[in-house]
């Protein structure tokens, strides 16, 4: 309950700041962005995050399932390690390096955001599956379930809350990182923020940064609700 109040308060402040700056015609000699611009960049921003996290989810969960199979268990360190390295590259460098590799535009942005958002999902999925009580798997096998059935009906459902938490973390990180997309020919709220940086106008920076933060909070909250919804009843901690 108290968390909800905090989230609502912060959201209200962020909306207020955005509305305040947008209602000005100019800050200094610079034009502020219109509501139309904001709506447009919100769409662009969300779309980037959606595509990148979507791909990261598919790849991350698949990889996690793969490396938790006994046959591929030796690959686990390698895969998780590679994911770790992906995220230890500074986000700005990762996006910038796409420029010579893939050129300007949406493609570069998505690849960079994907690499950056993959690790939380991969690591959580891996941990979620690994931490399932072996006795449960054992009994499933005893009931005559095939390997595929065990993965689909036992492992993934039991690991789902942890996987969802990974997706949520990845989404929140990606909303922030997507600010940088504009540096390699993408779009999104970064366009507004960086105009503020180059115009050296704090209010213009806020006009881009506040809605970005708002998007991260809203998406994070929504995914948290989903996370709670899909937790199997037996795993729910009684409040």
């Amino acid at each position, binding site marked *: 309950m108290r968390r909800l109040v905090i989230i609502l308060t912060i959201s209200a402040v962020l909306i207020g700041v955005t509305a305040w700056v947008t209602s000005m015609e100019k800050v*200094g*000699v*610079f*034009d502020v962005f219109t509501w*139309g*611009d904001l709506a*447009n960049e919100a769409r662009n921003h969300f779309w980037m995050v959606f595509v990148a996290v979507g791909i990261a989810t598919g790849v991350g969960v698949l990889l996690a399932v793969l490396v938790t199979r006994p046959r591929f268990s030796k690959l686990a360190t390698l895969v998780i390690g590679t994911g770790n390295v992906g995220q230890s590259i500074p986000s700005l460098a990762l996006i910038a390096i796409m420029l010579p590799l893939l*050129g*300007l*535009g949406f493609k570069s942005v998505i690849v960079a955001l994907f690499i950056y958002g993959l690790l939380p999902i991969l690591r959580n999925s891996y941990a979620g599956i690994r931490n399932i009580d072996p006795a449960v798997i054992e009994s499933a096998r005893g009931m005559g379930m095939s390997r595929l059935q065990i993965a689909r009906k036992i492992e993934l459902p039991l690991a789902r809350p942890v996987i969802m938490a990974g997706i949520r973390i990845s989404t929140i990180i990606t909303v922030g990182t997507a600010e940088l997309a*504009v*540096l*390699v*020919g993408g*779009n999104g709220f970064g*366009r507004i923020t*960086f*105009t503020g*940086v*180059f*115009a*050296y*106008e704090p209010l*213009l920076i806020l006009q881009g940064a506040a809605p970005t933060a708002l998007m991260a909070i809203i998406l994070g909250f929504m995914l948290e609700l989903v996370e709670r919804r899909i937790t199997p009843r037996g795993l729910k901690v009684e409040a």
Partner: protein
Amino acid sequence: MRKLIPVALALVLAVVLVVTACGPPGAKQVTVGNKNFTEEYIIGQMMKQLLEDRGFNVSLTSGLSTTALRQGMESGDIDICADYTGTAWMIHLAHAYEPTGHNELYEMVKQEDAGNNFVWLDPMWNHNSYVLVSWAQFATDNEVETLSDLAALYQQEEGKITTYVDFEFSARPDGLPALEDSYNFEVDAAYLLTGVPGISTLGLENHECDVAMAFGTDAIIGKYGWHVYTDDLSFWPPYDLTPYVRAEVLDEYPEIEDILNELVATFPGGGEAATAEAVSECQQAWQALNARVDTDKLEPDEAAHEWLVQNGLIEE
């Protein structure tokens, strides 16, 4: 743990020494600032190297945006920089622009900025204006010559022409929104790309857009023979690159004025009133200089050094 204390102390001491380190006592210390594109990197280096040659201790703050540089000048963090007359008139002094000649605009800026304790030295008449450019093929295919023609094309295509500009241009009063108002067109938001300085011409080079913002003295325009749309409504003011100095610094070191005017005098029409020939020749001189960096891949400090040596301002 105890062993660590002297190490930590030594580190702190080292940091303090480095931070507070000054040049030799009594040295003439000034800070030069420059903006974030080729021409500005070169002029910053020219001023730095020349002043150093004349006995100054110069620190250079490089890569600032227009407004950041101005704020640095106002706060006193930066003593000397070179900015454009049109930029000063419209951004720093926040005036609307009425068509004015090069000399008149320079005088207006010089006079008004004196009230802010800035002294504008002699200008270089290189008129490095914002321009919109396209591949020659695009201009020929669509029969567009001037910005008015281009505006008509935008209207016809409902703004669906991919256009690349930089961040400053997307918000400045001499930038895209005002240009759209003046020429009565609008770029569809989905077809508008915005980025860091220099990326718009990279976008055009890679055919990621049809129309790009550039600077009049950009070397890349000549390299590819890009079509530059004529500003037939005189929307843009003259943009003549001019060093200016904080008055207090000039009071302390009056010789700076002669030193930098000497540099300006190496350019066509430097130190004299602007004429059409002077503007065009000075523009070409700067295009060639920018090409040394953008095309020939020299570093800005090398290009600056080369110019200073060639013009006999400093020894090899």
